């Protein structure tokens, strides 16, 4: 499929010059130069052997045609042939072995480099890059790029074969050699038109595979709806069309991409027949010999294949380099979050947080989330933040956690700028519980221990009991050993929430940030979470993005945010009395969470109409 490489992936803008790409590529393979030299050497030897073999056949036949032939010479030719055959295999084997000594390690280094760079990135990076595409860089692009290295050695070998073969042919008979060469332009013409055709057909193919994917995903995601409405048959029928279309486009594409070999071999056959015909004439004129024509027959079969492979070199190289570019795109991304050069080692922070004139924009495009934002949170304070989506609530905690870099102003904790603290030590003082709880593949215990793997059994259970997760864990069949995450699943949002509380509590952070539970947590779980929160929040500074009335009521202070500004602050009572934005928000989102709320009867008119 080399001929069509690169056709089936999406186009991408070039960001690096060829020279830069190649020089960086060279740097990457320098540690493996011994392997690469050896591989090239093996290829060189085996291709030389491959070229000498027809010559041996020719010499042998010439000798055998003579009336008084020399037995030792004939035997010699035969033995050399045998030895060369063995050499070709030995070189093949050595080459494979050497690739095995180099490629796996090359890939390992490359993947670890990409991974390390990913670890350095802040969250703005992950906003820009989908996890699927990052994953494909580490698994597929790394492989493609690795193969390019072998490609270079291979191409060199093929280049060598075609040049040398042609040289030999010229030496044997210039006219016949030039006639052979006439096949080459046809090959190139063939290749370009086929690539062009394939590009057109592959467009439909890509579209139809996308449709199959979508159809599949939709039917699975919506399976419950489909079943509750008894519509399985309708959905299946709709998919049948998509599936048929995929067959049609895929078959068309295959028909185009597989025709080249047959055409190539037909061109070879035509040239061969012409050469034999002309050769016959030359022999009858006495200007050529059977041996020479025989050698032509043998060489022609080896001549076009390498040229075809050579022709695919550039597409393949550019595909490999495109993969490398995508990798470089990661390797060269500098994290936006940068710590100052002189760093404080922080041990245990007190927890007084001051935002001073903070300016922040996610993409640094002048769309400010904060402009001159100020906020002081006292040590040990429980602060609740409320506001509409997009008011800047999450941005505030994102900045505090150093997930994003801010552009102006400062954030200080206990008087030290957070940019001047060692990031790992600083973050150890922070605890975060997010709205969408993410659990890693593994057991519940591994997840709770995530921030402190060496925690004692006693501490572990203390944390679990404190947040009332023990009830849940004991209820599960495998208890702490229950598998969760990608491979396990099966926990409800509320249960995951409790586990994430335990996880946060075990690290005993000085500052706790809660992006609160979703509204889908039921009343009972909420009651438990509420009890858990009381434990969790005591004796530390906490910032809570509030979705629940109960948390708001228990906070020391509520701030109401809108468009990156604090527009109101105070306690629940004082804010309600004030009757401003908070009053409205309360009515809209929180009021019905209280027991007193009753829907007001509308006049019956509208309803009876419908």
């Amino acid at each position, binding site marked *: 499929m080399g001929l069509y490489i690169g056709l089936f992936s999406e186009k991408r803008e070039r960001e690096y010059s060829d020279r830069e790409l190649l020089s960086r590529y060279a740097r990457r393979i320098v540690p493996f130069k011994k392997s690469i030299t050896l591989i090239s050497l093996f290829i060189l030897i085996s291709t030389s052997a491959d070229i000498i073999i027809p010559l041996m056949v020719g010499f*042998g*036949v010439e000798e*055998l045609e003579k009336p008084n032939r020399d037995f030792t010479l*004939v*035997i010699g030719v035969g033995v050399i*042939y*045998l030895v*060369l055959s063995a050499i070709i*295999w030995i070189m093949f084997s*050595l080459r*494979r*072995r050497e690739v095995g000594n180099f490629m*796996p390690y090359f890939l*390992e280094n490359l*993947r670890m480099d990409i991974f*390390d760079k990913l670890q350095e990135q802040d*969250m703005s990076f*992950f906003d820009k890059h989908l*996890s699927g595409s990052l994953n494909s860089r580490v*698994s597929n692009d790394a492989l493609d790029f690795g193969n390019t290295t072998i490609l270079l050695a291979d191409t060199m070998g093929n280049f060598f074969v075609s040049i040398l073969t042609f040289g030999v042919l010229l030496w044997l008979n210039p006219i016949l050699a030039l006639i052979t060469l006439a096949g080459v332009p046809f090959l190139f013409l063939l290749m370009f038109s086929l690539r062009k055709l394939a590009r057109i057909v592959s467009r439909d193919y890509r579209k139809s595979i996308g449709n199959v994917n*979508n*159809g*599949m995903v*939709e039917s*699975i995601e919506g*399976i419950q709806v489909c*079943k509750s409405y*008894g519509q399985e048959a309708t959905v299946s029928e709709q998919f049948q069309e998509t599936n048929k279309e*995929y*067959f049609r486009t*895929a078959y068309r594409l*295959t*028909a185009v991409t597989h025709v080249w070999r*047959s055409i190539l071999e*037909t061109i070879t056959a035509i040239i*061969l027949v012409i050469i034999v015909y002309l050769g016959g004439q030359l*022999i*009858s004129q006495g200007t050529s010999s*059977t041996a020479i024509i025989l050698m032509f027959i043998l060489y022609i*079969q080896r001549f076009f294949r390498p040229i075809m492979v050579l022709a695919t070199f550039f597409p393949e190289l550019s595909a490999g380099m495109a993969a490398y570019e995508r990798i470089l795109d990661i390797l060269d991304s500098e994290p936006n979050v940068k710590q100052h050069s002189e760093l404080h080692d922080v041990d245990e922070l007190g927890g007084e947080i001051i935002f001073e004139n903070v300016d922040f924009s996610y993409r640094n495009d002048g769309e400010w989330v904060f402009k001159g934002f100020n906020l002081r949170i006292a040590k040990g304070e429980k602060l609740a933040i409320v506001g509409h989506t997009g008011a800047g609530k999450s941005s505030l905690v994102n900045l505090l*956690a*150093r997930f994003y870099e801010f552009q102006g102003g400062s954030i200080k904790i206990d008087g030290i700028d957070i940019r001047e603290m060692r990031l790992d030590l600083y973050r150890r003082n922070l605890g*975060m519980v997010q709205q969408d709880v*993410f659990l890693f*593949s593994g057991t519940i215990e591994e997840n709770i221990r995530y*921030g402190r793997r060496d925690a004692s059994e006693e501490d572990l259970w203390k944390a679990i009991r404190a947040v009332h997760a023990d009830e849940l864990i004991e209820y599960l*069949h495998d208890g702490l050993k229950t598998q969760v995450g*990608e491979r396990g699943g099966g926990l*409800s949002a509320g*249960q995951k929430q409790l586990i994430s509380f335990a996880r946060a509590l075990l690290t005993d952070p000085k500052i706790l940030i809660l992006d609160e539970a979703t509204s889908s947590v*039921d009343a009972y*779980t909420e009651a438990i979470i509420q009890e858990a929160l009381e434990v969790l929040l005591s004796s530390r500074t906490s910032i809570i993005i509030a979705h629940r009335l109960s948390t708001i009521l228990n906070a020391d202070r509520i701030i109401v945010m809108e468009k990156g500004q604090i527009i109101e602050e105070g306690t*629940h009572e004082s804010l309600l009395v004030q*009757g401003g934005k908070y009053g409205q928000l309360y*009515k809209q989102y929180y009021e*019905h969470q*209280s*027991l007193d709320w009753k829907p007001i009867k*509308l006049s019956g008119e509208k309803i009876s109409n*419908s």
Partner: protein
Amino acid sequence: MSLDIKQISSYKKWFLYHLVKQKFLVLCVLVGIISVTSLRVIIPIVIGYIIDTTLITRDLTNLILLLAITLTVYVSRNAMDYITMMVGHYLGLKTEQNMRQEFFDTLQYKPLRYHDKARIGDLQALATNDLRIINTMISHGAFYIYPFFQVIMAAILLIVTLDLRLAMICTPFILLYIYFLLQYRRRITPWAAGRMVTHSNVAVVLQDSISGAAIVRSFTAEELEREKFHQAVIGFRDNRIGETKVQAKFYPLLVLYLTIGATFLASCIFVFQDTLTIGALTAANLLLITLIDPTNMIFWATNDMMSGFAACSRLYTSLSLEEEEQQESYLLEWPDNFRGRIEFRDVTFAYGDDGTQNTPILKNFSFIVEPYQRVALVGPTGCGKTTMVKLLLRLYEPQEGTILLDGIDIRNYPLDELRRHIGYIEQDIYLFSRTISENIAFGRPNASQEEIRAMAELAQVNDFVQDFPEEYNTVVGERGTRLSGGEKQRVAIARAFLTDPEILILDDSVSAVDSKTEEKITHAMENVVKNRTTLVITHRLHTIRTSDKIIVLKRGRIVAEGNHNDLLQSSEDYRRIFGKHLVLPELVVRT
């Protein structure tokens, strides 16, 4: 056309079953392979003949004719090669298409417990990547057969047309060659399988550390993640090293090269003794060279085959994982005078295969809902509320006990009718990426536009649809992403209303709409809910309080039953949930 997997006992049989369905195509491919092989091995013989009869004798009279024959054989070989390849691909693609449709249909009729365990990404990968891999295996299957055919043909030709002595020389090599081919396949198998496992391991570990990026950072667990990833990468590396080691010792090729060399040496001696012609020497040499290409193909074909069978086994496992839902029932028609009395009688249920290993979600669960009652279900997450609803819809089957509707076991109602008469508005609303009106009409594809509009109005869909330029023809985007949570819920409510169900189940269905809209929907609902039995799962206190009956669940049991005031008195659990709210400061604020 979904699959009756019970009749097929292994993935290999499943694969064969699909192949046999295309037996005509399979036959064509076999015929193609034989003809291509025959044409391919004839060419050297013809060339040898040309050398002997024209080039060496310098008698050109027959040259043109012979060359014309050569070219014809060449061209027909290439044409046959292409045709065989295309028939092979047709076979592969057709099988892929059939398997995919079968997979799709089977999934549709799998019970929900199947879907709970399956991950969408996995199923999607099965339906696209894995099926493509199987297609490749079938399409390239010919490559696997070629060398065997060809080596046999070559041996026959050597004996028949060339020289018996050469054939004798080749025989031990040929046997060795076949032995090594089979050996190679056996030895590479574990490594090829390992490659797939280690490759996906790298992806899984990486995916975790990317999805959990924020958590990794906030717990400063970068080192831990690095270690996990490194282990996965090392696993991949070591497997690859092992694989190349086997590949490096690809003995079939060694045997082949030695055969070619030895035969050439012997031919030279025979020609020297004048017992062999130069043409025959050339023919034998070219004949054996034609084996190199197919032998190399084995290399790739083995890979294709390994991954192909692995994919077959994954698909087969997925297909055979749960039986299809039982469709049989005793009542053939839905009763006209259906009233909607629900009774659970001693129901015990656990998720999982046979229900014995997992903790039961519901234990000896019994209750009755009278016709037209509105009942609220309250309890902690995982206490079995949603499970109970799913049992009622027969999305799952209880291990013990019975569920009755109007006194008749639900298993006696036709399954599709049962589900159509129970309207269920689920917790996570799922909308299809079609237009709003198509989504509303999902349960009744033949509903008129007027009916759709009327229901939309009732569910307050009309409010926000006005804002879209294409109104009801607005496509809601993937999973309904163009709509907010509250808007999706309203569309789902309209969808349920349209089917005019006798029993309505609301699973936290208005959690995401603001209080004003909820008010409106609540009132609209009051009208709709009239003359229907309604089950409500909610944490909205006012809904709970105004229900006819409240059922409090805990750990799969009913711990209390009654109305709000009763329960505040009698149930400690109920107080634990709602007691807190009672001691809140009474705030009456007028703005």
